[in-house]
């Protein structure tokens, strides 16, 4: 513990309580204490605060660590940096090319697409914390869910499989959006981490795009327009893992 030189009595008191004083200052304050019962009581109370904090919170150090903390180090196991590097370069080029071709469209086009990830992340924030009613229709009625949402969106849609990432379909719901009805599919892994896929119809101004990254609060999202639909995958995954899921969804839905 490093030693500090207090510049007034208050600092002397705090540093004494936290054992951050040199021998001379310790002698100084202990002399003050013997002549001042109120000061002695105050110091005793402060020391008691520290002791109680330890009593209260030290046991937490012996609690088991949540298993999902292991996901933090996942990159360790599969050193796929170079694949990710190649993928991001490819996406960058795709984005640049797309950017070149859509550069003449007015800014309204761009703003419309920007609305898409915002609607999706807002819906994600509203429904993901739900414990009892995260979805309107459960995954055990997937056929019905797909038929219903396709009918409301006026386009044939599917719920992609994300099992290879450890995520299973929980179900889905119908939502409003700036272009009319939208669908939200929710996925969950074993540790309760949830992803949502938001799908709505394309507005007239929107063109096909590559994957775009969007971040709001602690959520990462990738969005893209493909055919008549706009898609957003949102979740608390790191950017590269989420991009992998976006690729998988894109591959499954464009076939």
């Amino acid at each position: 513990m490093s030693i500090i030189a207090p510049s007034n009595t208050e600092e002397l008191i705090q540093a004494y309580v936290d054992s951050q004083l040199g021998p001379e200052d310790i002698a100084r304050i202990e002399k003050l204490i013997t002549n001042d019962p109120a000061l002695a009581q105050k110091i005793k109370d402060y020391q008691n605060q520290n002791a109680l904090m330890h009593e209260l919170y030290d046991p937490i150090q012996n609690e088991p660590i949540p298993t999902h903390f292991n996901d933090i180090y996942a990159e360790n196991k599969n050193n796929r940096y170079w694949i990710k590097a190649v993928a991001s370069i490819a996406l960058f080029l795709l984005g640049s090319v797309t950017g070149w071709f859509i550069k003449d469209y007015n800014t309204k086009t761009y703003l419309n697409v920007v609305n898409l990830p915002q609607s999706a992340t807002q819906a994600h924030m509203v429904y993901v914390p739900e414990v009892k009613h995260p979805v309107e229709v459960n995954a055990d009625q997937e056929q019905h869910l797909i038929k219903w949402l396709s009918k409301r969106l006026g386009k044939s849609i599917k719920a992609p499989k994300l099992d290879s990432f450890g995520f299973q379909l929980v179900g889905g719901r119908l939502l409003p959006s700036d272009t009319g009805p939208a669908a939200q599919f929710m996925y969950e892994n074993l540790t309760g981490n949830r992803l949502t896929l938001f799908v709505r119809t394309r507005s007239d101004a929107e063109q096909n795009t590559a994957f775009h990254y969007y971040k709001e609060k602690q959520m990462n999202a990738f969005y893209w327009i493909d055919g008549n639909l706009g898609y957003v995958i949102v979740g608390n995954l790191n950017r590269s893992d989420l991009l992998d899921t976006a690729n998988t969804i894109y591959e499954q839905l464009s076939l």
Partner: protein
Amino acid sequence: MKNKAWEKKLKDQTPGLRRYARALTQDATASDDLVQDCLTRAWEKRDSWAEGSNLRAWLFSIMHNLFINNTRRQKLHQNHVTSATTDTIHHSHSDTMLDLEKCLAKLKPETREILLLAGLENLSYKEIAVITESPVGTVMSRLSRGREELRNLMSDSQKPKLVSIK
């Protein structure tokens, strides 16, 4: 440092970070989110960490930034925060410990942070100054005001409750 060594270093720090985060957030779920975010940041930035410097202090700095951002965001949703602070009652704890917990929850997050860094984590004032990005003098004056506030709250909560009669 190799990835394996990094993973081990961070895992060794995890129990300590969880103790601090629980005391800081006063909420089991929020605290594990905070620790997970903190470790993720550290893991992502491991290459930029100067070997030989104080890993624990670095982790506390990351945690400080995450916590400040969170509390800033939560100020927009005050209702959720106040309702979330009630679920940390531990059984088998003495009344004084429960009092301390309740009173800590009443402090401003910034004040609670300083009290915990000094009293629970036993960090030096210089380290706390670096972690919270404030001068040592500010750390010490916040500490002295915070401890006195906590002391008053504790003595209030130990007095018998007055029943108001209408």
